[in-house]
């Protein structure tokens, strides 16, 4: 019998190992040496490069069009990459328009400010296009003063579809070929002051001036992200890593989750503690009433508490406790959440514990009393320890429920784990990564807790056998 089990588990292991090897092989294959499906000649490459680059400047962008007249690009060498790409070594000649604009930036922005200011004083509207046209002469002078530049640049063609290549327009490539034109908008954005009649004017909020300058050099919208090639494994991996970076690494966004997790765990721990204490008190009151008929008034209060808490949704309780009861007296959100979940959990714990106490054999109470212990002492020494042991797994499950339930705390704006995920979602506009991560974190904690409960149960069972 034992051997049979071993043989079948061996087969299972073999199948699992084979699948793992196959998966690894597939992934390795996916990432290694994916060549374009056909070769490409220097002439064809030259054609693609020129066609792509020379169509970039917007026809209305005089500056860009002027630079374009001076741009020359020659493909010297063509070689294959390993990622459906073709590497082109190129020589280029261009105008260093970025340096020219940097040099003239002060006079350009001052002139732009003067024109728009005077137009405004005369009551005329001056939008970016009008301003640019008025500035044209000054811009032309600036461009014509630009120094020629030349050098070598590596461009990449990617096979985006079977046999079809497209030029990868990285910022680096644009900056080289167009003399820093990709950098230009960012530089213009740094211009925040203008001189007007010997006064320094803050133009941080005056976008019209900067837009007028930028428009002169604007390029058509191009995608500066590296083209996605390769099979679906590679693409999926790329998009996963990109999303992961964007959602968690960039700007240290993972901290939202870490802090949220901390908050969730503290709410759960504190509320759980409160729930257990409250639950035991209520359960003991209810049991005492049931067994001895005493504590009638407190028992009535407990009954009302149990009905109300168990008869209304926890979210409604949270909203009422925070917005109706505690916010007006200035209790902070976190504390309100702890109080609400503690009260809520207390009701469920009370019923669990009451069940546990009532399930203890009557003989235990009689044995304790017959030895001479009072009612309270018997409860403390004999009934409650046994009941606690009996309900411990149920209590742990209640704790797990509480952990998950605490996610509604975000309705009152507590920055818990769920809120952390939503915060990242609102920053990155991605859905699956933050939400699934939040779910996975909850799942991981619940699985760990469940495991611990299992160990605990086994431990408890063992101690008395």
């Amino acid at each position, binding site marked *: 019998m034992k051997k049979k089990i071993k043989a079948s588990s061996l087969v299972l292991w073999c199948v699992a190992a084979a699948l793992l090897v196959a998966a690894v092989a597939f992934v390795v294959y996916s990432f290694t040496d994916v060549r374009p499906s056909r070769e490409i000649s220097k002439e064809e490459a030259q054609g693609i490069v020129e066609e792509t680059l020379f169509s970039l400047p917007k026809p209305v962008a005089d500056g860009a069009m002027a630079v374009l007249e001076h741009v020359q690009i020659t493909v010297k060498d063509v070689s294959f990459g390993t990622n459906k790409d073709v590497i082109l070594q190129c020589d280029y000649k261009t105008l260093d328009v970025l340096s020219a604009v940097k040099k003239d930036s002060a006079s350009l922005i001052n002139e732009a400010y003067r024109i728009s200011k005077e137009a405004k004083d005369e009551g005329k509207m001056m939008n970016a296009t009008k301003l640019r046209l008025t500035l044209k002469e000054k811009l032309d002078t600036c461009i014509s003063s630009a120094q020629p530049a030349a050098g070598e640049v590596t461009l990449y063609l990617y096979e985006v579809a079977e046999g079809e290549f497209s030029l990868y327009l990285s910022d680096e490539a644009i900056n080289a070929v167009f003399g820093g034109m990709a950098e230009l908008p960012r530089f213009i954005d740094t211009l925040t002051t203008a001189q007007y009649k010997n006064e320094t004017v803050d133009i941080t909020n005056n976008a019209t001036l900067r837009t007028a300058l930028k428009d002169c050099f604007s390029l058509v919208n191009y995608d500066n992200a590296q083209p996605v090639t390769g099979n679906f494994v590679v693409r999926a991996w790329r998009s996963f890593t990109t999303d992961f970076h964007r959602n968690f690494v960039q700007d240290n966004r993972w901290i939202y989750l870490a802090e949220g997790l901390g908050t969730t765990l503290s709410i759960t721990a504190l509320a759980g503690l409160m729930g257990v204490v409250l639950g035991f008190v209520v359960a003991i009151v209810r049991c005492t009433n049931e067994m001895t008929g005493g504590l009638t008034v407190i028992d009535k209060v407990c009954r009302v508490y149990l009905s109300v808490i168990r008869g209304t949704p926890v979210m409604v309780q949270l909203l009422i406790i925070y917005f109706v009861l505690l916010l007006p007296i200035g209790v902070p959100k976190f504390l309100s959440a702890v109080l609400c979940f503690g009260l809520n959990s207390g009701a469920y714990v009370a019923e669990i514990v009451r069940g546990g106490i009532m399930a203890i054999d009557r003989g235990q109470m009689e*044995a304790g009393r017959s030895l*001479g212990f009072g009612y309270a002492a018997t409860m403390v020494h004999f009934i409650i320890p046994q009941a606690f042991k009996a309900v411990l797994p149920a209590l742990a499950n209640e704790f797990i429920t509480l952990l998950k339930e605490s996610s509604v705390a975000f309705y009152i704006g507590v920055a818990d784990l769920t809120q952390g995920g939503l915060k990242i979602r609102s920053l990155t506009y991605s859905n699956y990564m933050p939400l699934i991560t939040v779910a996975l974190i909850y799942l991981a904690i619940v699985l760990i807790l469940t495991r611990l409960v299992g160990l605990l149960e086994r431990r408890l069972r063992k101690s*008395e056998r």
Partner: protein
Amino acid sequence: MSDKNVILRVEDLKKSFGALEVLKGIHTEIRKGEVVVIIGASGSGKSTFLRALNLLEMPTSGKIFFEEEEITDPKANINHHRQKVGMVFQQFNLFPHMTILKNMTIGPMSLLKKSREEAETRALELLRRVGLEDRANAYPAQLSGGQKQRVAIVRALAMEPEVMLFDEPTSALDPEMVGEVLAVMKDLAASGMTMVVVTHEMGFAREVGTRIMFIHEGTVAEEGTPEEFFQNPKHPRLKEFLSKVL
């Protein structure tokens, strides 16, 4: 009235559960060193009577005196009374979450304020008496029924009671375990302990009992020494009962 030998005196004890009157006025005295065996059909009220002696059942009316002190007085300290009255139950009622030793020492330690050493020494001595010394650190679930009942007896003895009450101590046991428990009880009786025993073990009643009490429909229908009781029963119900159980 003030017989120094009387431990328990019961006067016109009545007990009703709702409309059902279980005890209809019982008078008796239990003297030091007596082994009183109570027999009767099920539902006759014999267990209720026994349980009333340490107030596990509160009498509806009537008085119970323990060493001339009225324990049915609402002002009486019931817990103090119960310390002096050991009780053994049909279902043993050991505390399952405590070791045998702890079962036996918790009472003396918390109620009699004995030191741990003193309580444990006494407990081990008692366990040795019933042959369970080696099970001191076991849990009740690890013991057989007979062993549990022996522990229950010595747990009650650890409180050094004046009188021991036994509520059908062998009824929940497998037949082969009855003997070991009865042996302990005989031994206890021989040591001079005052005992009140509700049982169906007629052999024990005859052999160990100093007085037999037949309870029928809530009253003591007949009582006497084992000899006259078994050889010459007078009450027709007793005759019928004995013919069934003997």
